[in-house]
């Protein structure tokens, strides 16, 4: 079912873009990622809106009073928080549900990229059976996986240094992935609701942790995945910017230490 409704349709959209743009698989991944981000844009906008409402609520005097008043009674605190959510018309899951919905799309997208690359005989056989009849399969497959200096189906190629004859994987792509992930996290990080805000601290930690994690993934997985990460990061920044949620000062050293004003 996962295969029929998610991976196979996504694979065919990817192949359609590949065919439409002259058989350039790198370009197809970029356009495919942009398309998926556009389709899921309403989800993202709703997530940002919910997060912002949550931030505002957590910065409010009423919220902080509740925190103080019931700090030793967690059950009562939860009840009061729930009441406040209802009063302000906030869905506490509003900020994470859209993200959860996007996760299967991200997995499906990655699986469809890997399927389309068909790097082994069984994968190619599986791919031939996933392709819709509208395509002339034998003429289309296998795809040309060369893009710029990369083979999108392979991990980064090795570079050999005078002092390291065994070579190291070319770090260019992982560095770009890590950098764009970091920039996206910094630019889109909302201001802390209050100085002791745990979610803000968590956000800061993620901003440091995720670039390393995604950088490591792009070092160890096929380069096609890195193209997806980079495109996704850049489109993400653009989407936040269009919604007016990018704080460029966050990139500057000693830039604004955002703390939302209590209302």
């Amino acid at each position, binding site marked *: 079912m996962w295969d029929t409704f998610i991976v196979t349709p996504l694979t065919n959209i990817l192949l359609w873009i590949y065919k439409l743009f002259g058989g350039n698989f790198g370009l197809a991944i970029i356009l495919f990622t942009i398309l998926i981000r556009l389709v899921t844009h309403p989800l993202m906008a709703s997530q940002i809106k919910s997060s912002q409402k949550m931030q505002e609520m957590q910065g409010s005097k009423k919220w902080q009073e509740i925190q103080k008043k019931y700090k030793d009674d967690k059950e009562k605190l939860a009840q009061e928080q729930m009441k406040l959510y209802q009063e302000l018309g906030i869905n506490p899951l509003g900020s994470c549900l859209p993200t959860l919905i996007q996760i299967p799309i991200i997995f499906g997208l990655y699986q469809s990229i890997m399927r389309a690359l068909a790097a082994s*005989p069984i994968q190619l056989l599986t791919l031939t059976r996933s392709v819709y009849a509208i395509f002339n399969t034998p003429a289309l497959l296998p795809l040309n996986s060369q893009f710029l200096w990369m083979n999108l189906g392979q991990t980064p190629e090795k570079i050999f240094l005078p002092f390291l004859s065994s070579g190291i994987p070319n770090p260019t792509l992982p560095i770009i992935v890590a950098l764009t992930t970091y920039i996206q996290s910094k630019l889109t990080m909302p201001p802390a609701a209050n100085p002791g805000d745990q979610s803000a601290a968590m956000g800061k930690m993620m901003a440091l942790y995720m670039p390393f994690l995604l950088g490591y993934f792009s070092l160890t997985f096929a380069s096609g995945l890195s193209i997806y990460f980079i495109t996704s990061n850049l489109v993400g920044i653009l989407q936040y910017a269009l919604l007016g949620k990018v704080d460029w000062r966050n990139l500057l050293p000693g830039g604004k230490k955002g703390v939302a004003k209590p209302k």
Partner: protein
Amino acid sequence: MKVKIILLILSSLALGLLLSGCATGLTPSSWPGITSDGATAYVASANAVYAVNLENGNELWRFPEKVDAKKTFYAAPVLTPDGQLIVGGYDRVLYSLNPQNGQINWQYAEARDRWIGSVLVANDLIYAPNADYNLYAFNLKGEFQWKFAARQALWAAPVTDGQRIYFGSLDRKVHALNAHSGQLAWDKALTGALLGSPVLGDSGQLYVATFGGDVFALDRTNGNQLWKFAADNFVWSAPVLSDGVIYFGDSKGNFYALDAATGAKDWSLQPNSPILGTPLVVGGQILFGTEAGSLYAVDVQGKNAWNQNLDGKLYGTPVAGGDLILVAPVEGQSLLIALDQAGVQKWAFAPAKK
């Protein structure tokens, strides 16, 4: 906060595992490759290369002895005249093993991608196709000699007439190189990717089947087309040439016999499901396997001599081992099945778990 950090780390690890599962594939990447010297069968399948005694189907050795998830093998191993067994792995390493005990003689680990196709051993060289687009040449000690870069992956072994080597690539081209220097003599773009090996004709022809569904006869001296035959769908493996007739199957399940001189169809039949492997000609019969798991034997007129339904899918090529016919089904109970030339099963080998 600590709980959140632990959750974050765990979810990252889960993401990594899921991605790696998608990247490498949790299912087999190909089908087993078999070779035989008449007394022993060597089978490359998933995590090991097995040596199996042809007399009784017992395991003699396996490489590696203990399962290493990073090592997988599917290309048919190849024996060299000086007593080596050459097999490439999906771990990007080309191994020379001792065929007596499976110990490593030497290994080459500098290729950038998988060794999907088998090697060709000729002219005191080992010609090894790699998915990193290169055809590598080594001497018999495993020392690198030269390489030739195609524009896409190489999935099948080259062939040689002594002067030149010929091989196809997923770049849809057939290449002819000087067998000693690796210099390009000619190349020719065809109608689809070349997943199988070319076949040498008796009078200077080169027969090539393509993923585009065509079989070509080319002039070996310059690559000029002599004739072309269009099959119903893609042709995965090399055809076989016997007594002036070309035999091959296609993915729609058709099996064809063509006149090798003209490309005219002698006969065709459609047994039961896609035919992906190269046929085997032995004892006046043509044998081929189907995806439904049937092994068919037909005579030169295309009349069914016998067929045997086996457990699993027969994607690979049947191989002659002494008087036996060896097949390695995918997704079956047994890894290797031996039949006599009347289609009667003699033994089946399933490796014990270690």
